[in-house]
């Protein structure tokens, strides 16, 4: 089974849940798809690490062949090409690597080159295999890295997803069996929970919510779940001890039997939810 842990809002405890869920599942692959700020490795401290580059294809022009017909400029829906001073300019940061400009060029004046945009690091931590995506600074989209991360993976898999509800999240959940949404007890948390919820409804994926940092105060995220009939998988009450373990880069499941039981139960609930 493939599980994606999502949040809508950053800082709700997505990595906390993903890391502990993977540790509780024991034999599984933990994939950090939060490629703009991957931090799961801080907890797993992987050994036997290996890394490889992720590249995308970017067009370049053969000036001798280009006649300036501008078919490519007109074709590019991302406006990554401009023709000025009798020369074609390619804006690499805007290019989405669709390859369309090569197809429409009647002179075969365009070719593609590989441009590195990030890397994938693999390693191990006890019985958990790790796969982490890391986007280079200044790059505009992590989608190709997430695509590469999720190729050739063996179940069971826990994916630490990117925050938000945009393209990177869609790429992450495309082939998963179940999504866990981590929500914090704030109005802002509720707002962004609703955004991911809407996205998941569109995808028709089964999902449930983990309420993090709960107290006896009002919880707008919990109210939202009740209104929308969203299953609440688990509540993690605000706990200074858990905060301390986390701040020291320790995995609660591996340090504390209470959390081990809690996350094992969560994993079982997800297995049932993912099958239905």
């Amino acid at each position, binding site marked *: 089974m493939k599980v994606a842990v999502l949040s809508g809002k950053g800082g709700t405890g997505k990595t906390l849940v993903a890391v502990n869920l993977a540790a509780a599942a024991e034999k599984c692959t933990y994939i950090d798809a939060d490629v703009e700020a991957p931090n799961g490795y801080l907890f797993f401290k992987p050994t036997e690490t290996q890394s490889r580059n992720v590249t995308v294809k970017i067009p370049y022009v053969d000036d001798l062949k280009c006649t300036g017909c501008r078919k490519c*400029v007109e074709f*590019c*829906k*991302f*406006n*990554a*090409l*401009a*023709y*000025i*001073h009798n020369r074609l*300019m390619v*804006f690499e*940061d*805007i290019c989405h690597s669709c390859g369309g400009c090569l197809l429409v060029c009647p002179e075969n004046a365009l070719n593609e080159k590989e441009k590195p945009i990030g890397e994938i690091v693999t390693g191990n931590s006890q019985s958990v295999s790790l796969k982490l995506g890391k986007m280079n600074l200044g790059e*505009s*989209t992590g*989608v190709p890295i997430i695509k590469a991360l999720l190729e050739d993976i063996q179940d069971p898999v826990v994916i630490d997803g990117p925050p*938000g*509800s*945009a*393209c*990177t*999240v869609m790429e992450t959940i495309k082939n998963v069996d179940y999504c866990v949404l981590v929500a914090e007890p704030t109005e802002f948390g509720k707002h962004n929970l609703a955004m991911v919820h809407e996205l998941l409804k569109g995808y028709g994926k089964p999902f449930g919510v983990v309420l993090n940092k709960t107290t006896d105060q009002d919880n707008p995220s919990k109210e939202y779940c009740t209104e929308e009939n969203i299953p609440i998988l688990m509540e993690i009450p605000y706990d200074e001890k858990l905060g301390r373990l986390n701040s020291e880069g320790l995995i609660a499941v591996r340090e504390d039997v209470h959390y081990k039981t809690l996350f094992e139960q969560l994993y079982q609930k997800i297995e049932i939810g993912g099958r239905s």
Partner: protein
Amino acid sequence: MKIAIPVEDKHYEGNVCPSFARAPFFMVYDTETKEAEFHENSASTSPGGAGVKAAQIVIDYKVTTVLTPRMGKNSADVLVPAGIQLFKTEGTGIKNNIEAFEAGKLKTLGEIHEGFHHHGGN
């Protein structure tokens, strides 16, 4: 000489648009004939890369100068190598800015912002 200005309306008495690439119209003004043409800016509704497209549009009007309150990096990366001169507008009126430019009172656009790409993710 022809100059381009991002504008809010198709009206010489109207206002300069605070955004270059996302302006609804461009006014192209000929300093010799004193004639102004207004063109819709098809880049304004682009989901992305509006800066590149808008710059290509004004270059294709064969202007040599752009007057604008601000400009993003992608637009400048097209316009500057094309030899287009960039001047910073002052105040909001189109007419005042044309007069100020012709009197040599507008300053060169010094600051280029990073742009607002990929908001909302992609």
